[in-house]
């Protein structure tokens, strides 16, 4: 199986360690990962902010870059959702039939990281060890967009020495929402305050999720409050082994 990593522009720039963690886990499981350098961005920011035509070349680039792979894995639920839901929509709306076909063929091979582990590779124990109290935040895109269900928790429960704790009202939105946090900063901050209170309530040392964007928002709020809870992408926890963290 030829596996490509779609790192996403955001992780590429801000959270390269998440990409390295994905590679570590997949290699530990005996797979080879490729990173096509032609990849850039799924177009989510443009699409969600109303700049749909600007996202179309990015859709075409994505299809071109990843068309030859058996599987495309991404550590971002929201970008996986963008590709799955909206690439076909944009191709239909703005593009020649060739791209519509290309996108339709590629989309079923694009997987969010935890989905890829559980559904495609069929593993829940990835051989990780992480002796900490961890809370999992189900981001809206993993929860209601991709319907990841309990896949992330199943993976986390199989991690050696990890104690999984619950966040109160875990399914309520953290208030990030991409440009929402900028355009509606006050409302976003009010939602963030409630989320952070819940995170602190949980007693977790580490908060993880399948989306670094929401984590950056929550972690940024916690840091401003002077809280010591660390935020980490779930892949980084799955990459951790005895003695490493």
């Amino acid at each position, binding site marked *: 199986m030829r596996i490509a990593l779609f*790192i996403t*522009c955001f992780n*590429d*720039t*801000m*959270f*390269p*360690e998440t*990409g*390295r963690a994905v590679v570590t886990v997949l290699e530990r499981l005996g797979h080879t990962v490729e*990173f096509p*350098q*032609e*990849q*850039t961005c799924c177009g989510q*920011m*443009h*699409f*969600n*902010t*109303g*700049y*749909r035509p*600007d*996202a179309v*070349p*990015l859709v075409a*680039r994505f299809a071109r870059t990843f068309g030859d792979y058996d599987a495309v894995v991404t550590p971002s639920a929201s970008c996986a959702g963008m590709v799955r839901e*909206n690439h076909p929509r944009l191709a239909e709306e703005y593009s020649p039939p060739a791209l519509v076909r290309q996108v339709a063929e590629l989309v079923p091979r694009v997987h969010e990281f935890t989905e890829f582990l559980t559904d495609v590779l069929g593993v829940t124990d990835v051989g990780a060890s992480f002796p900490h109290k961890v809370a999992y935040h189900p981001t*809206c895109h993993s*929860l*209601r*967009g991709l319907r990841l269900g309990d896949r992330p928790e199943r993976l986390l429960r199989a991690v050696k020495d990890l104690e999984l704790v619950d966040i109160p009202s875990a399914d*309520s*939105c953290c*208030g990030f*929402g*991409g*440009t*929402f*946090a*900028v*355009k*509606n*900063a*006050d*409302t*976003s*901050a*009010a*939602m*963030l*305050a409630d989320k952070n209170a819940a995170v602190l309530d949980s007693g977790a040392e580490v908060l993880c999720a399948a989306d670094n964007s929401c984590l*950056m*928002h929550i*972690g*940024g*709020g916690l*840091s*401003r409050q002077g809280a010591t809870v660390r935020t980490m992408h779930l892949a980084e926890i799955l990459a951790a082994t005895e003695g490493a963290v």
Partner: protein
Amino acid sequence: MTGQGVVWLGSPSFPEAAREALKDSQLRANLKRATGTIRDKRLAVASELDDWEALREAGAAIKKRTARHLDRYLVQLEESVTAAGGTVHWAADAGEANRIVAELVRATGEREVVKIKSMATQEIGLNEHLAEQGITAYETDLAELIVQLGDDRPSHILVPAIHKNRTEIRDLFTAEMGHWGQPAPDGLGDDPAELAEAARRHLRSKFLTAKVAVSGANFACADSGTVVIVESEGNGRMCLTLPETLITVMGIEKVVPTWSDLEVFLQLLPRSSTGERMNPYTSTWTGTTDGDGPSAFHLILLDNGRTDTLADEVGRQALACIRCSACLNVCPVFERTGGHAYGSVYPGPIGAVLTPQLVGVENAASLPFASTLCGACYDACPVKIDIPEVLAHLRAKVVESKGRTPEALAMKAAATVLDSPRLLGAAQKAASVGGRALARNGRIGRMPGPLAGWSDSRDTPAPPAESFRTWWRKNRETE
């Protein structure tokens, strides 16, 4: 009121209105308690039905079919209502609908009407119009009464006074009831039963003397001409049966093809709205009947932007709404800001997609952005309106209507960078250098310009020295 007549839009943009609302901690507490309670009740009663998802599918399918053949069903409805002894009027916009109602009331020689909760009449500003004509409209729904006495605006579809707690309501009753009719009893307490009793007495005299009633409609069946209202307090039943003349104002999207379609909606609606298995009062009436109920019945079919909405293949979903308010109660944005921030009779997620379509996106440009696209509304909606899809669709229309804004230019520039791995790499390097220069202990604090709002409450990590693609090139490609 805007030219097209959706009341009270033209207030500040959503972010500004929200900022004001967020300062009111009492409001936030009231909202959190109220929406939380209804939310839990809804989940409990919806999960009792093992065919809940099938019911949602059915509801969505009926609404879709109705929208596709709306013209046909409306004509059929007109025929059925006429055959049953009613009169049908068509109103293209708010002005026309208001004029028709005022004329009908004037023809009876009356100067007072009782009203049962109707969003359509709020949408067109009917009470205000009638007042200008010297006709007083009395709201008879408890929450509507509270809103009317407070010279306030409804802030929720189902619980218009959700923003008020009972102490605030008691004070309002004591101060205002006397100006509208029977005053509140001396020493009124803030116990819900006491408040309800005061309202009941206040309203009773209105019910017994009113000769004209104005209502909305939850549904109207094209095949039989039957109009349906569901409610909780019985005030609707009073309005619909006691007066001599009944005038119903209904949005054209409320028609359903057949009487048997109600089977689906009368299960979906109460569960989604109040978390009850059945509405305490379900009233249906078909034209007029000698010696029973109103002797004159007028049905006003209101367009007011709906046929334009219908023309939009993605946006028309919003017309399927049965006004259950489930989307409001699960919306994290509504929960913080309340309904007034939406500047429209239709607040919350459904308001954010319906209002811009009814009044034109350029007149409500901030509303499609008043959401994180978290999707909770879509999951809750009993007729499966994909509100996030419509929000994203309308955002594109807003952007298109605004042309070359600074944001549009920035987005264009970003798209150019993102379509080139080389430019992206260069931008990453610049961000890394710039970001690290700004950072203290690896974190960036307050930022200027459009990012000020973001950085007011969050630190941002400094971008790492090396992007993933650089790391890969150095560590993997040389192997």
